[in-house]
């Protein structure tokens, strides 16, 4: 078990810097999810922790020990790959035992660990099969088993569920979480799926274009997104954004409505409103001209435009919605559930 420190971490390929001064403290036993769109550098960051990519500058420490110069095998980590990377010519048992054999563990110790891991993952009956004789979900378990038997200080997961179908993905997600809680091993998990990130992580590191946008618990990210990017990335359906003018605790909406907000300053800003925080209100300042309804059963999504403007806006209302395409419906939002961002930097404005 160990904590991990990322100190002023930079990665460049030639003159191009792809990760910019990453900072992060990961506590012992914590489950951290690195999330972001493709190309944001999340896999690179994970591979740097693993030792598969070199560190340009800065430092990675695992359990207080600087590991920048260490070979992957010397870092006491285990990694689960997106395509599982099982050795195709070895049986499940040999796959799991390979690393231990190289470390010259005694035979009965290797056997004990493999059996134990197989027991936990319920793959005992497949131990003598080759990877190609297994289904996707079973391969996934073998890949996890290979990580478990090493009894490492850190688990690294590189989008391990993206090759599974939707149903299996939900199931494996829960199993990974349970397993991690049971073993208590510090874990870093990379994904581009925000739902996976929210449900798995103790804390989330949101990466965008090589910068850390925000590092916090799922609830912090949802309640107080640090930037327009995080606000738009976390939560489904996505947050609505409107350009507004702030003065004396009110935001002037495009088209003229006045919405009370919790704001200390005045001037132009970007207003963020989550669809689920819009309440239907006959006297509400937000007039939405309905374009389309999406019935989800428990709730209904109303897609439309702010009346008299081109700004599209989505609201989520409980229950079944009545037919009303083309009609105008009015909404309001509680001031404490509104978000304000700087129009230029996109950063959250202090209240």
């Amino acid at each position, binding site marked *: 078990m160990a904590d991990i420190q990322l100190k002023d971490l930079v990665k460049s390929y030639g003159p191009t810097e792809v990760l910019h001064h990453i900072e992060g403290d990961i506590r012992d036993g914590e489950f951290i999810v690195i999330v972001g769109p493709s190309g944001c550098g999340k896999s690179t960051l994970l*591979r740097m922790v*693993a*030792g*598969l990519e070199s560190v340009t500058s800065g430092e990675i420490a695992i359990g207080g020990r600087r590991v920048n110069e260490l*070979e*992957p*095998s*010397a870092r006491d*980590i*285990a*990694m689960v*790959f*997106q*395509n*599982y*990377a099982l*050795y*195709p*010519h070895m049986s499940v048992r040999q796959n799991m035992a*390979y*690393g231990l054999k*190289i*470390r010259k563990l005694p035979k009965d110790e290797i056997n004990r660990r493999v059996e134990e891991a197989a027991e936990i993952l319920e793959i005992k009956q497949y131990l003598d099969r080759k990877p190609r004789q297994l289904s996707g979900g079973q391969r996934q378990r073998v890949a996890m088993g*290979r990580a478990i038997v090493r009894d490492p200080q850190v688990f690294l997961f590189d989008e391990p569920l993206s090759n599974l179908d939707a149903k299996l993905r939900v199931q494996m997600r829960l199993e990974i979480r349970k397993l991690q809680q049971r073993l208590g091993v510090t874990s870093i998990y990379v994904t581009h799926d925000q739902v996976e990130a929210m449900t798995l992580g103790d804390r989330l590191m949101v990466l965008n274009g090589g910068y850390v946008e925000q590092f916090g618990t799922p609830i912090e990210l949802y309640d107080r997104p640090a930037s327009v990017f995080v606000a738009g990335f976390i939560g489904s359906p996505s947050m609505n954004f409107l350009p507004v003018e702030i003065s004396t605790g009110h935001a002037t909406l495009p088209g003229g409505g006045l919405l009370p907000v919790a704001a200390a300053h005045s001037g132009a800003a970007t207003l963020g409103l989550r669809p689920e925080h819009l309440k239907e209100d006959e006297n509400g300042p937000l007039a939405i001209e309905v374009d389309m309804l999406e019935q989800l059963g428990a709730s209904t999504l109303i897609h439309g435009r702010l009346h008299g403007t081109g700004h599209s806006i989505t609201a989520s209302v409980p229950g079944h919605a009545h037919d009303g395409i083309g009609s105008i419906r009015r909404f309001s939002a509680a001031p404490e559930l509104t978000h304000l961002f700087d129009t230029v930097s996109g950063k959250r404005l202090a209240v």
Partner: protein
Amino acid sequence: MVENRPLTAFLTHLVLILGVIAIALPVWITFVASTHDALRMNQAPLPLWPGDYFLVNMKQTLFGSGLSGTESAPVWLMLLNSLAMALMISTGKIAISLLSAFAIVYFKFPFRMGFFWMIFITLMLPVEVRILPTFEVVANLGLLNSYWGLSIPLIASATATFMFRQVFLTVPDELLESARIDGAGPLRFFFDILLPLSRTNIAALFVILFIFGWNQYLWPLLITTDTSMTTIVMSIKQMLEAAEQSPQWNIIMTTALLAMIPPVFVVIAMQKLFVQGLTETDK
């Protein structure tokens, strides 16, 4: 077949059978020649049906003194020489090509591309275009009349290197990463992961290279002057020359048969690997 017309089906088989006969005819005649005695083989027209001297001819060819009037090694020794040469060439080519392909694909080092092109150039220099100077090099190294001289100058191989490079490039990167996390160094990765994964490619290439090695002609002709180093394929030419004085076609054709049996057997017995090897190396 799209339609089912008995006449076309019959015609198809007829053409194919005629083709098979045309292809097999020279070898049939050779086989027939190896089953008659020397006397019968000196009367025109030659027989088209086997006689019963096959075992006698075999015995005389393999263990006898060979053709009368010539001084040559016994045929069994020639077969051994051919086998040694073919095995040295094929395993040698495979070994050094595996190693260089591994280096070129899995390491980044100065002059990597330089080495790659140097290997590529060998493709453009068949032995036929550099006969004399290569002969001089081998002579200066004192390798004439040796197995080393027979095999080593032929074992550099661009095609084998390219093929293994291609095979290695299809091995997912994650296997290497996984192996590194498991603590496997380069050589361990090579022997534990890469070699087992390339098994069938190696076997397929071996089939092709064995035939290539066995059938070498010009090269052994140049560098072996000692009769005890003669290979079976080379010996045919000497026998043909001798036949102009005293024809003993039964022995010559038995020798020819013995010379073609091993590689032909390899093709037929390992047909799948042979086809794979042939199509892979010519990509």
